């Protein structure tokens, strides 16, 4: 029986092996994805991002436990950065997730970013598809909010939780630009710690200053919802009508998890009922195709160039014999010569 068929039959070992194959770009992984693609599109894909140590893994664990109690099956993809110097990685998120082991309704996989520029590896998108096809109702993706990865999470997830914690720099500068644009739910974790109110206030202020949904709400306080400005292309497809709620949690004790689940479910319902879910998916597929095409064409170009073509170009540019522009044109022309 094929690995894909075994995955559909609930074989966890087959799922684990296919995750390895998509991660390693093994041809059997691609073949399995083709077989399984028709079974995807059912899971609710939730991204969890935030600064290192904000409590993401603990929160994911608390969420998973509560969702399990509601009878939902959960897959977790925990992404950690690869060391750019050694290519190795320490994947330590499972430490917080011990309570979830040996539950057949939960599958946890750790993944390193490997070569991926932004942090979230391309493989994570396909890993989510495997979980989806395997029938997990909810896929939680944990990713450290550093660099580009928090924007990338919006290209994969349907609902994005941005996790903040008190005392991690509460001024507006410290709350990173871009974070509000991707947040569907703002979580202030470690609510048992002093300073929660300051963090909540800072986030509220940020929302008031910047969020398109609030502008729409302000204009609609006579009972009519009016979007005053054409919406910029928010990466998560949020329209003017979803204002990210701020939810306080204490992940270590499970405090605030119920309201958080309610907020997540409200967002999911909003996506479905407003038709945003389909728009979001089509935008995500569009981005994926562009990314993959770019990568494929680049690889093809590099493969077709004579050896050292790039190094030679670099040297010529450095000697000021030519310009980057001219070299690019030549490299592309060289690739387009008919190969004999």
């Amino acid at each position, binding site marked *: 029986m094929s690995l894909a068929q075994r995955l559909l039959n609930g074989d*966890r*070992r087959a799922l*684990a*092996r296919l*995750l*390895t194959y998509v*991660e*390693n770009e093994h041809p059997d992984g691609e073949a399995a994805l083709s077989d399984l693609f028709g079974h995807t599109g059912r899971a609710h894909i939730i991204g969890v991002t935030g600064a290192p140590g904000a409590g993401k893994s603990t929160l994911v664990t608390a969420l998973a436990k509560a969702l399990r109690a509601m009878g939902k099956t959960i897959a977790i993809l925990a992404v950690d950065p*690869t*060391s750019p110097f*050694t*290519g*190795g*990685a*320490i*994947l*330590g998120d*499972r*430490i917080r997730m*011990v309570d979830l*082991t*040996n539950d057949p309704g939960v*599958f*946890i*996989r*750790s993944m*390193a970013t*490997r070569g991926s520029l932004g942090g979230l590896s391309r493989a994570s998108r396909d890993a989510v598809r495997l979980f989806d096809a395997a029938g997990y109702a909810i896929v939680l993706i944990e990713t450290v909010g550093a660099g580009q990865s928090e924007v990338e999470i919006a290209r994969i997830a349907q609902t994005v939780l941005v996790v903040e914690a008190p005392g991690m720099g509460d001024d507006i500068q410290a709350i990173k630009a871009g974070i509000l644009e991707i947040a569907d739910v703002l979580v202030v974790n470690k609510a048992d710690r002093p300073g929660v109110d300051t963090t909540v206030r800072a986030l509220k202020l940020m929302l008031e200053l910047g969020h398109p949904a609030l502008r729409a709400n302000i204009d609609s306080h006579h009972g009519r919802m009016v979007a005053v400005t054409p919406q910029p292309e928010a990466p998560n497809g949020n329209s003017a009508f979803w204002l990210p709620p701020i939810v306080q949690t204490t992940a270590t004790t499970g405090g605030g998890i119920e309201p958080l689940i309610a907020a997540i479910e409200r967002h999911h319902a909003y996506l479905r009922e407003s038709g945003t879910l389909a728009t979001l998916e089509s935008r995500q597929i569009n981005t994926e195709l562009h990314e993959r095409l770019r990568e494929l064409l680049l690889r093809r170009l590099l493969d077709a160039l004579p050896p050292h073509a790039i190094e030679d170009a670099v040297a010529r540019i450095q000697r000021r014999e030519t310009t980057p522009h001219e070299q690019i044109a030549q490299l592309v022309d060289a690739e387009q010569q008919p190969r004999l």
Partner: protein
Amino acid sequence: MSLNRPIRVLIAKPGLDGHDRGAKVIARALRDAGMEVVYTGLRQTPEMIADAALQEDVDVVGLSILSGAHLALVPRVRELLNANGMGDLALIVGGIIPEDDKPALLAAGVQAIFTPGANTEDIARTIHEIVDGKAAPA
């Protein structure tokens, strides 16, 4: 290296003793040797370790045991891994293992044993040899 992808290792600390400094040192050394190290933390049962190894599809499981319970824990982990269809996954053990106990562990399906003071580079090299040996075409 004969693999064109990083080796994946799960480092687990079964048993009840609460020291994982050694396990963390190994985890970091293996990361520095270019491996992806899934670190699962303290007080893992053999069942938890085998389940994590299955989900993570690692090449190697490394057990760090200081409690003296290795003769009970290690064969149990091996048994559960085999039951999961991971008979060819390499199992290595590090910790306070008396010389007299080593043959029993090796017979129980352990590929390598490291005692305190073992050179981390040796550990990384041994893992490479074990995994590469297996990856080589038969």
